[in-house]
């Protein structure tokens, strides 16, 4: 099962996702130990592989640190669902092959602890706990292409 960890708040920023005091490393497993530490100290103890983070508007605002995406990915989180994402965080996620789900509605239909299933290609979130089904706009084709290539560097390597 993929459990939802809901943070019903806007502007969850990169300092909360991975505090700068841990930026002296870029090791993903090391960063994962501190994922969301300043937002929810207990997060890393309760998160399981494939779980989902749910946030409000402007998720990932602040720094350009890709470490924020790595910390989340390193914690084995499957995806983040938010009403909107901050620009650099969103771009970083695409560039390192991590799929994000932007949906203004989905957070209204997910409670903390709900079991969630996502169909990325068809573009819907299934809340198995409540039965709710919420559509979202899939990523644009160029972004999917980058993700399918395994990230931006693999993508640009093809034309080098």
């Amino acid at each position, binding site marked *: 099962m993929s459990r939802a960890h809901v943070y019903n708040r806007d*502007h969850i*920023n990169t*300092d*909360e996702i991975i*505090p*700068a*005091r841990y*930026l*002296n*490393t*870029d090791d993903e497993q090391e960063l994962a130990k501190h994922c969301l530490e*300043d*937002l929810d100290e207990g997060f890393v103890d309760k998160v399981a592989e494939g779980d989902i983070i749910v946030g409000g*508007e*402007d998720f990932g*605002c*602040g*720094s*350009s*640190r*890709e*470490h924020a*995406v790595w910390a989340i990915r390193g914690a084995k989180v499957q995806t983040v669902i938010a009403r*909107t994402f*901050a*620009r*650099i965080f969103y*771009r*970083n996620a695409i*560039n*390192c092959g991590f799929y994000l789900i932007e949906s203004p509605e989905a957070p209204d239909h997910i409670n903390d602890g709900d079991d969630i299933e996502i169909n990325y290609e068809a573009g819907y979130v299934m809340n198995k706990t409540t039965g709710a089904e919420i559509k979202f706009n899939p990523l644009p084709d*160029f972004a999917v292409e980058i993700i399918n290539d395994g*990230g*931006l*560097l*693999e993508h*640009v*390597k093809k034309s*080098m």
Partner: protein
Amino acid sequence: MGMTITEKILAKAANKKTVRPGELIDAKIDVVMCHDVTTPAAISMLVEKGIDKVFDKDKIVVTPDHFQPAKDVKSAELHRRLDRWARRHQITHYYELGRAGVCHALLPEQGHIRPGEVIVGGDSHTCTYGAFAAFSTGIGSTDLAAAIATGKLWFKVPASMKLVLNGSLAPGVYSKDVILAIIARIGTDGALYQAMEFVGLALSEMSMEARMTMTNMAIEAGAKNGIMAFDDTTKRYLDEHLKDEKEYTVYESDADAAYVRVEEFDCSAFEPMVALPHLPSGGVPIGDCAGEAMDQAYIGSCTNGRIEDLRIAAKILKGKKVAIRTIVVPATPTIWKQAMDEGLFDIFYDAGCVISAPTCGACLGGFMGVLAEGEKCVSTTNRNFVGRMGHPKSEVYLASPATAAASAIQGKLTDPRGYI
């Protein structure tokens, strides 16, 4: 229909006649800025993918700044990875400790920023350079790796928002107050994915240093870039700072360029502003928060660590004593020496401040002034997020160098106009 400066620069970089907001382009990059936090990861990626090369060793500018001089063993390792890479590729503009400084103060000062160019950097405040009529934006490590290796990046052309700054600023009110007031009005995502184009009388009366304080914080409104038109002030700065290649192209927004939003501000009515915790959009006039007790004052950073900022603070601190810990951080070695030569260090020393080496340090809770649980800091930096300068239960109050200096004397948030 005409184009904005941002659109014109991106069209040129994409080798196209026109571009429109929302269009995806492949743009040629003119300058890539690299520092110690995000670049080592980019280097590792390039090595791992077997594309460990640089597109042009003259167009990559490298400076450690966040944790320099190294604050611990792990950051020393980051510096060593950066250093070995810069040497291996014989990067022309590699600023080592002693010449390294806070990147967004260093690059314009050392003549690396030209109008009409596309500049990217592995740091969100790379939008600073837009003050020079350049397109400039912050990127993460993967983008940085791609830019280093290929000199190109994909961009979605941003729509532009126009911010009209009418009137002249009153004494004691600075560009920092203006940008805090703007973000308080439009919010931390008010310009999400957009270009913030600043125009108006108040802007034309500002120095380049003051303008950079505003473009620096464009990201705090979610913007992709901040941008300002070229004028005599820009030209004077460039004449003084550009070293080798002194040529550049000046683009102006067309009269019929399209803006998604136009916001007008009467800058003559602005007062000193303080952004309360925990968002940069928490700005209120000083009158609404004066008297709040502080534990520390911080004067520095890519927002307000330039010589003009230090002069403003020194003028207020002259002959006074600070009531709280006060940390002054000249942003680059040149600014550091200039401040020393002008006698500002004597003023800071006599007032009881500490003067640090150029570093980003405490601005991001790294070192050199980190806050304990429950402590409050009035700071000239750009972010006041939870835990930004230290303990998650510490608080950051963003303000101008004048407000920070006046508050340092009183030990509480203080209107600087009483000291001017």
